[in-house]
């Protein structure tokens, strides 16, 4: 899409309830009336219903259901997060693209967003089912001035931001399973995969990949995940706005990130604990080498490390494990 057309579409989204005159568009974008008319015609062909009334101008009545970056950008209230969007109809994985962009000097807060991921991946190469038009598949690039040991805390912070955004937009209360799985009644709703680009202790970029099951129907889920995954539509019975959710996540994440930079993890920790599923309960932590540690989850420490007290009263610091509840 041409730059001017993108800008016109953004303006139409911003003035969704009212008319915007052709003259106003020309002045804001510095183009001719003919150019505006030409782009409006093209947008109509692409499926946008745009009303035009003499002397009043243009009004966007309906946009195609698909996700567009113009709609996300139109009413985005953040300062950095998501202000630059690299949008794709279909990609192998937003995470991979974000890695390349970060290496090529993408700015702090750049968001890679896709309507469909053909090869969406979770951790350790696990497949993340991300079908067209039903979810939010995105990767946020951060260039934090933080030491490497603080970066894992960002994965907990991201989980808090998403839980709060889901509550705001869809009024659904979800929980966090340490460190950052987001569940609703025990079923997975959101997956977060955070990756780091670093040179030893020097952090170059952090890429937070987020996969959110928004409008996928139960029947459309692959059989193998039907019992363990859910979506906002399955939970609420209603189609949810992906655009609003993306916008809210960007502003929430940015707000918490600023708070974290100013006041440290100490202020994020109690928020995380509010949503944490396992605190005070007996859980099992399974390490990669198959060791299983059972005990009561006491909470997290100021690094975000899970504290697990076994029946001998010994508190173990869990840095890395799969939690079974």
């Amino acid at each position: 899409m041409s730059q001017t057309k993108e800008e016109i579409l953004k303006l139409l989204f911003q003035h969704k309830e009212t008319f915007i005159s052709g003259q106003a568009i020309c002045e804001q974008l510095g183009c001719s009336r003919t150019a505006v008319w030409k782009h409006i015609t093209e947008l109509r062909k692409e499926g946008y219903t745009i009303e035009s009334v003499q002397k009043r101008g243009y009004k966007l009545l309906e946009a195609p259901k698909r996700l567009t970056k113009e709609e996300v950008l139109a009413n985005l209230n953040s300062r950095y997060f998501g202000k630059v969007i690299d949008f794709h109809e279909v990609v192998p994985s937003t995470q991979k693209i974000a890695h390349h962009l970060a290496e090529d000097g993408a700015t702090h807060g750049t968001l890679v967003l896709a309507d469909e991921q053909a090869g969406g991946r979770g951790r350790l190469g696990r497949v993340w089912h991300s079908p067209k038009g039903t979810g939010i598949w995105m990767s946020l690039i951060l260039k934090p001035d933080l030491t490497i040991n603080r970066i894992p805390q960002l994965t907990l912070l991201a989980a808090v931001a998403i839980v709060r955004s889901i509550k705001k937009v869809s009024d659904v209360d979800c929980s966090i399973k340490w460190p950052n799985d987001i569940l609703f009644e025990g079923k997975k709703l959101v997956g977060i995969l955070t990756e780091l680009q670093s040179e030893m202790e020097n952090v170059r970029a952090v890429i937070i990949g987020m996969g959110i099951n928004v409008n996928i129907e139960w029947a459309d889920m692959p059989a193998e995940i039907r019992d363990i995954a859910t979506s906002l539509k399955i939970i609420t019975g209603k189609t949810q706005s992906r655009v609003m959710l993306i916008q809210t996540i960007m502003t929430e994440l940015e707000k918490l990130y600023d708070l974290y930079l100013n006041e440290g993890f100490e202020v994020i920790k109690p928020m995380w604990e509010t949503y944490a599923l396992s605190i005070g309960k007996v859980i099992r932590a399974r390490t990669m080498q198959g060791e299983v540690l059972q005990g009561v989850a006491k909470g997290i420490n100021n690094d975000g490390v899970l504290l697990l007290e076994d029946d001998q009263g010994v508190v173990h610091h869990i840095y890395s494990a799969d939690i079974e509840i």
Partner: protein
Amino acid sequence: MLKVEELKELIQLIDDSSIDEFEYEVENSKVVLKKNKEVVVTTVAEPVVQHVAPQSPAQPTQVSQSTQKPVDNNAQEDLNTDSNLHKIESPMVGTFYAKPSPEKENFVKKGSKVDADSVVCIIEAMKLFNEIEADVKGEIVEVLVEDGQLVEYGQPLFLVKAE
């Protein structure tokens, strides 16, 4: 017998390294260097019982870590002194992954040739995945940790013979 210049150089080398104690015995002389307290240099003539060739320094011993609680890394003694060997260390506490996913091949193994930007492993903590690069061009001569093992901050993971 070592010349004064050679001794000086040796002291400098030991001083710059992480070695605490150094012992060198050849023919009728023995040199003992100790660090961190005070540098003691002793050269004594001793009857030679057996001829000890100058030994190449021992490889770093791997402190096995299977506990979840990290220990102070300073406690970990590093005996590697071969300056040609580059150590790839873990930049954080976490799980060491030798391969990108369970069914795939290891990123590298002993004998693998690597470039500075070759990924050699992944370290994960709290679902944060950090791909570790070799940082030097060369050959992996030793893999010091096992797949799935918990590693400490600063723990050596690989030895690379730099080209």
